[in-house]
């Protein structure tokens, strides 16, 4: 009984270590594939950019627009109870959005929508032997399937992040103006946003954008079984991509605070 318990813990830990190194291997092959493209389908990066970017536009607009409104409403409400001075709401809100909130929120949304999509697509290709058929013809599945998604995801996460920042700030300004009569000129003050904030925000977007297809792609390519396996891979992709985004966000924030944002 006790032996079985420790054996199952051991198997779980070994599985985690194995998955970690397999994921690292996929990441390494992806980076190599970016610089040494072999047999990638023409126009695939553009097609993936459409899938990742255009198809996420409404999702990002609605979610981040609503979030911007709720955040500003709550902040203004609390400030009204204490000092009533709303002049710093806009500048601090914009700064927080640029370096912290928008990158992680955009990435988390893409982790659910795009990560699930990648894992489901690659998972179903794996269980229907399409990945074996690719290997049979000498095509590296990582090079052919993950690299275009990796490049497209980095570009579109950056674009969507910038777009999301505009949406969230405009939505916040609208809320501040309509509910608390904050002047737009007072809200739209960008002086607090430093180059360091901008750098950290863009770095996070690019890194998160790159991590999602690698993690989800690994989950898809390691799918076993039939449709049940695809479902499990999709769930794993969403959870693992979200956790990876959170960990990477924490690491980049810490590095940013110790370097380009130090003393701000």
């Amino acid at each position, binding site marked *: 009984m006790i032996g079985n318990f420790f054996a199952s813990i051991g198997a779980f830990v070994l599985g985690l270590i194995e998955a970690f190194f397999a994921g690292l291997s996929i990441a390494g092959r992806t980076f190599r594939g970016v610089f040494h493209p072999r047999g990638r389908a023409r126009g695939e990066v553009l097609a993936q950019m459409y899938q990742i970017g255009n198809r996420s536009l409404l999702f990002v607009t609605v979610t981040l627009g609503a979030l911007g409104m709720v955040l500003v409403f709550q902040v203004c409400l609390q400030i009204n109870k204490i000092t009533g001075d709303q002049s710093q709401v806009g500048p601090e809100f914009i700064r927080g959005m640029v370096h912290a909130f928008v990158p992680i929120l955009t990435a988390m949304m893409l982790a659910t929508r795009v990560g699930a999509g990648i894992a489901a697509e690659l998972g179903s290709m794996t269980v229907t032997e399409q990945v074996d058929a690719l290997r*049979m013809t000498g*095509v590296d599945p990582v090079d052919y399937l993950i690299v275009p998604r990796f490049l497209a995801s980095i570009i579109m996460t950056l674009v969507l992040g910038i777009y999301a920042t505009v949406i969230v700030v405009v939505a916040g300004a609208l809320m501040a103006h309509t509910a608390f009569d904050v002047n737009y000129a007072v809200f739209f003050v960008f002086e607090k946003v430093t180059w360091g904030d901008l750098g950290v925000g863009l770095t996070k977007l690019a890194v998160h954008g790159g991590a999602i297809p690698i993690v989800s792609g690994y989950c898809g390519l390691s799918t076993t079984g039939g449709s049940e396996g695809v479902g499990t891979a999709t769930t794993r992709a969403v959870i693992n991509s979200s956790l990876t985004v959170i960990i990477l966000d924490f690491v980049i924030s810490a590095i940013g605070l110790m370097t380009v944002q130090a003393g701000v």
Partner: protein
Amino acid sequence: MIRCDGLGLTLSHRPVLNDLSWELAPGSVWGIIGPPASGKSVLAKTLCGLFTPQQGTLHVDGVEMTRLPEPERVTVRRKMGMLFQNNALFDFLRVWENVAFPLARQDPSLSREALAARAGERLRAVGLAGSEEKWPSELSGGMKKRVGIARATICNAPVLIYDEPTAGLDPVTTSKIYDLLTDLRTRHASTVIAISSDIPALRRFVDHILFLHQGQVRYRGPEAGLEACEDPVVYQFVRGLGEGPL
């Protein structure tokens, strides 16, 4: 052409192939049969280097495959064409693009027009002229098999592996598929390995049989000698008896 010595493969802590030895002469036609989950498809994929056995050696055209790194296996795989059990047609490519896919990888200098022409020829050969621009989802089961066969054979590889070429097809389509395979085999003198659960149809097509049960060889020899095999598993399976060790 292909020689396996003591092949052993374990997948997910379960032994799938066990001390398997087998030799295929060039131009021979082998059928692999056996009960479900006996390791037939895994053996086919192992021969292509899609699985790496933990024990034994595998020589394809004199090259030892088991210790070759993946990029070098590609060179050996170019000598093989495979029809997968699930057809494995790329659902993001049109029919002609599916057929031309291995050719485009083998000879990147071929233009799109040349690839389309070669794929069109091959599709005509399998009786699918006019289906070039269709998507795999628009095809019936039999048509998908034919597209899979066209893709497996477009490079005229010296070794052809057909995994369940007639699974789920009606007797007429089954007969047409085997006629097509026989025609391709006669024209290109390839070494052929076919896996099928339709034993009577398969036996008409092959010269030799390899019988697998739980990853072990129970019979290996001429097709005509299968009836005389006294192994109880083979005896029961070949005659379709309800009583026996299976």
